[in-house]
């Protein structure tokens, strides 16, 4: 296990270095460079731009800036927002809890519903339920998330007035119930795509597993069908499902961004879209890195979980 862990950690570190290089290169390849916004402003003179460049260290060679930025990441200095001048770390960290609240709720909900649908349609293979969920899942995967979110707001917030149209808390505070009411629509919208994916994958894994000899053996021994399903079949499906959880992360993070912009959910996604409008490179870069970090970390955790559940993975995955 030790060697496996070290190996996987090294791989993740390499990925993160790659991610930071690509992100940094993109930022500097952008037309006009990181100060493009200022050159459009007629009241800002060439001297001003030169002064800002020196102030932010943008006059130095790109590789020097890169290493300074990396050093900053480790010492907690993530630079300052071009827009407002607050420390980037604070700006971004303020938004992380809201995003995790949204992603975590959607992930848990979709896992429960998706796996249940997948198991049911595998057991009742070929039934009306199986066909209906297959078509429904395909349509759900094809819906533009932002449009579905807009419709949900129109119907449940603006027309019926049952739920709030956006944000994660009422302005006058409010307790747990208030937070829950704000969660319902965005989580439902974000979870829809995930439910579709979980159900499709669970179904195909379960079909494969239900044909295995040891399931037949368990049935032949006279075990209750529900026991065979949960203790034997579902347990075997755990490994591919954990892998899928890891692989699904970019989709989850990307979906959270879209959902946040539609519901004005004060998380990293909304911050990203706002920062795009003001060309706030340090903030954009930081969010890009946090997003990629979540994905890399998620895959690492998935691999470790699999190694714990299935000892064979340690050998094949190293």
């Amino acid at each position: 296990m030790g060697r496996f862990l070290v190996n996987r950690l090294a791989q993740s570190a390499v990925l993160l270095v790659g991610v930071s290089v690509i992100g940094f290169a993109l930022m500097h390849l952008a037309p006009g460079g990181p100060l493009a916004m200022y050159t459009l402003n007629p009241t800002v003179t060439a001297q001003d731009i030169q002064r800002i460049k020196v102030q932010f260290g943008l006059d130095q060679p790109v590789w020097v800036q890169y290493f300074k930025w990396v050093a900053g990441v480790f010492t907690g200095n993530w630079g300052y927002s071009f827009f407002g001048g607050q420390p980037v770390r604070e700006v971004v960290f303020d938004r992380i809890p809201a995003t995790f609240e949204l992603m975590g709720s959607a992930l848990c909900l979709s896992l429960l519903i998706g796996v249940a649908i997948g198991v049911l349609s595998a057991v009742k293979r070929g039934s009306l339920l199986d066909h209906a969920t297959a078509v429904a899942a395909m349509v759900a995967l094809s819906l533009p998330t932002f449009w579905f979110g807009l419709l949900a707001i129109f119907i449940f917030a603006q027309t019926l007035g049952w739920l709030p149209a956006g944000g994660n808390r009422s302005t006058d505070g409010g307790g747990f119930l208030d937070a829950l009411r704000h969660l319902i629509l965005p989580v439902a919208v974000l979870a829809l795509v995930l439910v579709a994916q979980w159900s499709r994958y669970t179904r195909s894994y379960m079909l494969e597993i239900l044909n295995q000899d040891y399931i037949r053996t368990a049935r032949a021994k006279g075990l209750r069908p529900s026991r065979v399903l949960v203790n034997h079949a579902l347990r075997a499906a755990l490994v591919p499902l954990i892998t899928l959880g890891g692989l699904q992360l970019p989709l989850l993070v990307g979906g959270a961004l879209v959902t946040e912009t539609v519901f004005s959910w004060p998380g990293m996604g909304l911050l990203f879209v706002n920062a795009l409008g003001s060309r706030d490179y340090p903030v954009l870069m930081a969010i890009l890195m946090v997003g990629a970090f979540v994905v890399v970390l998620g895959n690492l955790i998935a691999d470790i979980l699999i190694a714990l559940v299935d000892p064979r993975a340690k050998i094949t995955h190293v």
Partner: protein
Amino acid sequence: MSDLVVGTLPVAAPPRRHASRRFFRHRLAVLGLVVIVALALSAAFAPWIAPYNPDDVDIANRYAPPLSLGHLLGSDDLGRDVLTRLMYAGQISLSVGVAAMAVTVIVGFAVGAFAAYLGGWVDVALMRLTDTMLCFPSVFLLLFVAAFVTPSLASISLMIGLTCWMELARVVYGQIRVLKSADFVAAARMVGAPVWRIILRQILPNVMAPILVAATLNTANAILLESYISFLGYGIQPPQASWGNMLTNAQSDFLVDPWLAVMPGLAITLAVTSFNFIGDGLRDALDPKMQQQ
């Protein structure tokens, strides 16, 4: 990640006749094909069959509801005909989908094929790049680039293609790793065929099936991405219509005319669902081994 990634051994391609019969047996895929052909035709012939000019402003008839006289699907905040604009927007959205797919296929195939065929440090460098790119949630990357580039049909297609090629590269990589040691490839190498020729003439025809499936699903995804960045204002710019930017004002106009929010979204959903069903049908038809039970 689709189940395509699971590297199955490339099997001898079944006779094409059987593949097309299997495809046409997949009813939803056929329905998808019909819908796509209809959408493409109505978009392509929009200048001749559309009832109005897409930029004809008619302030007297703003916010006409669907099925009203003269406006089958209603009119928008400037009195422009929604059906007409949907047809013209289809030109843009479908072209972006197909063009982005072409970029995805070319880049993905090139990366996957060279990495797998050449091996060594090329393999390591290209596949590490693929892994790294996969860490970025693609929407973030796309928006980051889109915000700095002057939007046009070509630039948007290029950007979507360049942020979505990774999965296809992995599919191609997996397939070619296996094919590389096949006898007919070794034979081509022995008669001295150059690498690019072996890849294009010997290997490409044998990995066509998974590429075709991935390309179809990629088109669906590209249409979704275009609609989202246009909705946020970083894609196709008004007054030119795209399905995405027709929704930009939907939120503020909802209380006046909810239909303006419904129609473009339906068009997107219809196109994307159809491409996804076609991809599903192709997968079943081209590779019986991959078929989901």
